[in-house]
């Protein structure tokens, strides 16, 4: 009757080929990573625009962006995902209908990326804004004094100069993005957490699959950490070590 123990010992259930569920888990992981990467990149684009808007935009833009970041950061991701998932696609389709186009069939994956991107965007806006502000203004003035155009100042001085201040925050957000994908289970996106639950439910070996998924998530985190440390070392070149 201890089927969680027998289940736990049933390693063959993790085989990559059916009837093993290993392949399903890995596919789920791939979906999770796709959503995380996509959402993160979308969030980064939103973040760059948001940060520039907050720093250099007019008063209206700044207030609108403030409303965006405050709202998104105050409401649980789970609720945002439900709201954006249903309302977002619904609104899009109504809009398509309005302009007379075919209703778009938005896949769960795309919706997931959109949702994670909007959430990430709010946080990344704040991280990037802080990093922008951490670049000493004198460095920008020096660049102007040497005849750089605004674009050159941004590309050659501001962006690389803010990197060391942005990397820790951005790294943290990446790790959050990988784990927030688990919340998409509630809208039925077949990411790692949902397929884990399906595998557990079908085979009754809950413990085994939760454990396996935990290991997969942890691996993603650990691998990310190694990469982050590299990036950080590169970004922090030229900064004295802090202890």
């Amino acid at each position, binding site marked *: 009757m201890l089927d969680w123990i027998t289940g736990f010992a049933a390693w063959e259930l993790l085989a990559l080929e059916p009837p093993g569920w290993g392949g399903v888990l890995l596919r789920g992981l791939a979906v999770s990573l796709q959503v995380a990467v996509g959402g993160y990149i979308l969030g980064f684009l939103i973040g760059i625009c948001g940060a520039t808007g907050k720093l250099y935009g007019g008063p209206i833009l700044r207030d609108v962006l403030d409303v965006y970041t405050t709202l998104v950061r105050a409401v649980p991701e789970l609720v945002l995902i439900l709201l954006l998932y249903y309302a977002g696609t619904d609104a899009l389709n109504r809009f398509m209908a309005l302009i007379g186009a075919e209703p778009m069939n938005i896949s769960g994956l795309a919706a997931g990326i959109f949702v994670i991107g909007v959430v990430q965007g709010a946080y990344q806006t704040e991280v990037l804004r802080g990093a922008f502000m951490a670049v*000493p203004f*004198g*460095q920008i*003035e*020096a*660049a*102007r*004094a*040497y*005849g*750089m*155009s605004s674009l*050159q100042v941004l590309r*050659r*001085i501001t962006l*690389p*100069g803010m*990197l*060391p201040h942005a990397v820790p925050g951005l790294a943290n957000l990446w790790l959050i993005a990988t784990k927030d994908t688990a919340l998409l289970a509630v809208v039925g996106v077949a990411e790692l957490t949902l397929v884990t639950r399906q595998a557990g439910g079908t085979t009754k070996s809950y413990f085994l699959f939760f454990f396996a998924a935990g290991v997969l998530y942890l691996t993603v985190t650990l691998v990310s950490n190694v990469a982050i440390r590299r990036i950080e070392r590169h970004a922090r*070149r*030229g*900064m*004295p070590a802090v202890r």
Partner: protein
Amino acid sequence: MSSPHSAAGTSARQSAPAVQVADLHKTFGELEVLKGVSLTAKTGDVVAIIGGSGSGKSTMLRCINMLELPTRGAISIKGETIDMQPDGRGGLRPSNTRQLQRIRTRLAMVFQSFNLWQHMTVLGNIIEAPVHVMGVPRDEAIARAEKLLERVGLSDKRDVYPAFLSGGQQQRAAIARALAVEPEVMLFDEPTSALDPELVGEVLAVIADLAREGRTMLLVTHEMKFAREVANHVVFLAGGVIEEEGPPDIIYSAPKSERLQKFLATVQ
């Protein structure tokens, strides 16, 4: 400027003054900091700008390369006047960005707080403007940078990041960065006041060296003794105008205005 003796490096063909400031006004909000300043520096001149704290020395220097936009007046570099137009709020703004960027490369500013780019090595800082603004080939820029580093005595710090240099070394690197654009005029804003007394010497030595070479320089400084030694013209700013100017010997030994007398008494 009517300096009697002209320094070594002046060549005959350059008849236009290196820097010409005409009727410069600058207002911050309510505060009128510059109330009509005019100044001419011929090629090879070394002009020291002195004055009390808050008298507008930095502001004047920063207006020359448009880091601060003047409220009124004109700036010419080597006879070329920077194009400006009213900004609609009672001030001026540059109307030709390309011209401004080009002129800025002919002026090099050395800041009080160095403002080296922290994410680049010393070499990277020096070749940045030549390569990315003026389009000098990288190899050539590096070769030239190495000569400059030798000149300011920093050859061994070539690949070090600024954060790992002492203040004096950072300021010398900043001077090398300024020299790398082969500027026609160098602007120094209190280049030694952020330094410990022991480090001041090394930087002043480099500047004195440049002066001997005949470079056109405008420098704001509190080091009266030094200004006296290297400058061939001294400008005393007070109350938003040039209160007195002239060759250092006369300014220092026989100040006419009462304000200048008081000022010299407090700093010496």
